[in-house]
């Protein structure tokens, strides 16, 4: 593979709705377009419950999208038959948000790591074992951990087994859903360094879901900010973090605590209740909570508009006011 840009993942109009009581619909994901090139990292951040994990699950068809397209390595994932999904898992792997629920409690770590090597890479026993040993060491554990069951590991150890399992088949696309949330800061640093090294060596593409904005700044090239099922702002990380254009992004950035003594920060607060994704009203998703809301904001959903090269925001108010920090 050469160094030319090559799109590993693309979604168009991706949507997921869940039926809820009373014949209503919960809009978990509402028309999301993403593009991710080989060797790059796209961070997905945003409100809890805004649909990040749902996007991740739709991309690898663990959840069936209600509408929209998903393309991985030029293959129409949305149109694939269930029977051919195993081929997809050779190319795209996922690290789950909840490492407990995603590891079979009756399998040892060795069995967990051998399985994808046998199914997808068809390695013989000896080569599987060598690779499994290499993987546990890469994530900072030891071969002694291979004999453990998930309940015999700490939270952070389990999380690293989830990462090792996903790396096992050397996928082109790795979807990481909160992969470092249970790790102490020094192991977090080591795991991020490992991911960055593998990315350089193998041009891996990462879709990186996290609430840790420091991690975003450190590993991601681009960031997409989600609120209530939709992307409200996206662009290169340095640009979006330095000049956030959307009021939600500004509130988010101002709420991040700083790991230092005596730092006081001014938190930009959003007023009111977090709105419900059930039958959301038309217009801007933030309207009831936004300090800058105008009468026009509740009329129609504002589209993403380019505010500077590659930097998109869905807030017409900050755009016209020229109100840039």
């Amino acid at each position: 593979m050469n160094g030319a840009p090559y799109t590993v993942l693309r979604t168009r109009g991706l949507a997921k709705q869940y039926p809820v009581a009373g014949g209503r619909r919960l809009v978990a994901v509402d028309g999301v377009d993403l593009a991710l090139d080989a060797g790059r990292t796209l961070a997905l951040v945003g409100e809890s419950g805004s649909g990040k994990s749902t996007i991740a699950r739709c991309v690898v068809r663990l959840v069936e999208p209600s509408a929209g397209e998903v393309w991985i390595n030029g293959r129409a994932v949305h149109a694939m038959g269930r029977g051919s999904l195993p081929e997809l898992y050779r190319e795209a792997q996922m690290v789950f948000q909840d490492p407990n629920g995603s590891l079979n409690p009756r399998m040892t770590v060795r069995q967990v790591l051998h399985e994808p090597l046998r199914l997808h890479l068809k390695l013989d026993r000896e080569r599987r074992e060598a690779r499994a040993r290499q993987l546990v060491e890469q994530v900072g554990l030891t071969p002694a951990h291979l004999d453990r069951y998930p309940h015999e590991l700490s939270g952070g150890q389990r999380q690293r087994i989830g990462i090792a399992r996903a790396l096992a088949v050397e996928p082109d696309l790795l979807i990481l859903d909160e992969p470092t949330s249970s790790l102490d800061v020094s192991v977090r640093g080591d795991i991020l360094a490992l991911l960055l090294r593998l990315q350089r060596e193998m041009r891996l593409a990462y879709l990186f879901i996290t609430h840790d904005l420091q991690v975003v700044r450190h590993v991601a090239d681009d960031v997409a900010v989600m609120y209530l099922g939709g992307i409200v702002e996206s662009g290169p990380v340095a640009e979006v973090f330095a000049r956030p254009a959307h009021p939600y992004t500004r509130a988010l950035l101002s709420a991040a605590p700083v790991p230092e003594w005596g730092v006081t920060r001014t938190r930009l607060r959003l007023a009111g209740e977090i709105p419900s994704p059930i039958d959301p009203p038309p217009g801007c998703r933030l309207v009831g909570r936004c300090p800058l809301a105008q009468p026009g904001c509740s009329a129609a959903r504002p589209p993403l508009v380019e505010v500077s090269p590659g930097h998109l925001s869905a807030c017409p108010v900050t755009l016209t006011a020229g109100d840039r920090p």
Partner: protein
Amino acid sequence: MTVPLLRVDGLGGAFRRRDGGLTPVLHDVSFALQPGCITAVVGETGSGKSLTALTILGLQPSAFVRRSGRILFAGQDLLALPPSAMRAVRGRRISMVFQDARAALNPVFSVGAQLADVHRLQHGGSARAAWDAAVEALRRVRIPEAERRARQYPHEFSGGMAQRAMIAMAALVCTPALLILDEPTTGLDVTIQSDIMELIVELCRDRGLTACLITHDLGVVAESCEEVVVMNAGRVVETGTTEAIFTRPQQPYTRRLLAASRLDAAAA
């Protein structure tokens, strides 16, 4: 210095391996929780933070063999209590938000029903009042449309919502003297995380709650905690006020941890 609400004193123990041998995990773990304060427990993954917390509640895994130590809670050694007395302490006097919140919820009952059940168990009253209290608790942890959400099942909640439901259960439906939170905010975006921490701070101030916060987020520690316990490899390496730990760390491990918390600086 006031009398601590809880003192872990010389706690030590090992895991029994399947081959019958013992692997030591906790070595002389000692620290104290001052009443009305939030104490952070930080440190290496796998260093024994969750295990120590579970032992306080008498919920340690069966393979864990305790070899030494006392846990004094309001003057009583919890480790010497018979199981029935320990059950009375758990939930009522000490409650915990577990590291894996979703697994702690029962998948076959609605979230509201589980909270209401615990409410009736602890406070009695009518089913209606218990349900209202459950909904109110969900509202206070910023779950939107709490009334409707209460009727949903755990798998219909996002990761962060399940976490908030467990916080509602342990901190609001239960009204404990001591609340232990094991990584309670990892799945939450920073705006909701800040709201939750403000809620905990408020409960400490208004209700005299004592909290023990196990976390990897040193930003939350610097902002909301009064005291810090640093653990590494099954030992307490350092304890002190948050200011002392951040500005005058004594141990090399603490210094390394603080340096690693600033990713950009650590990489440079």
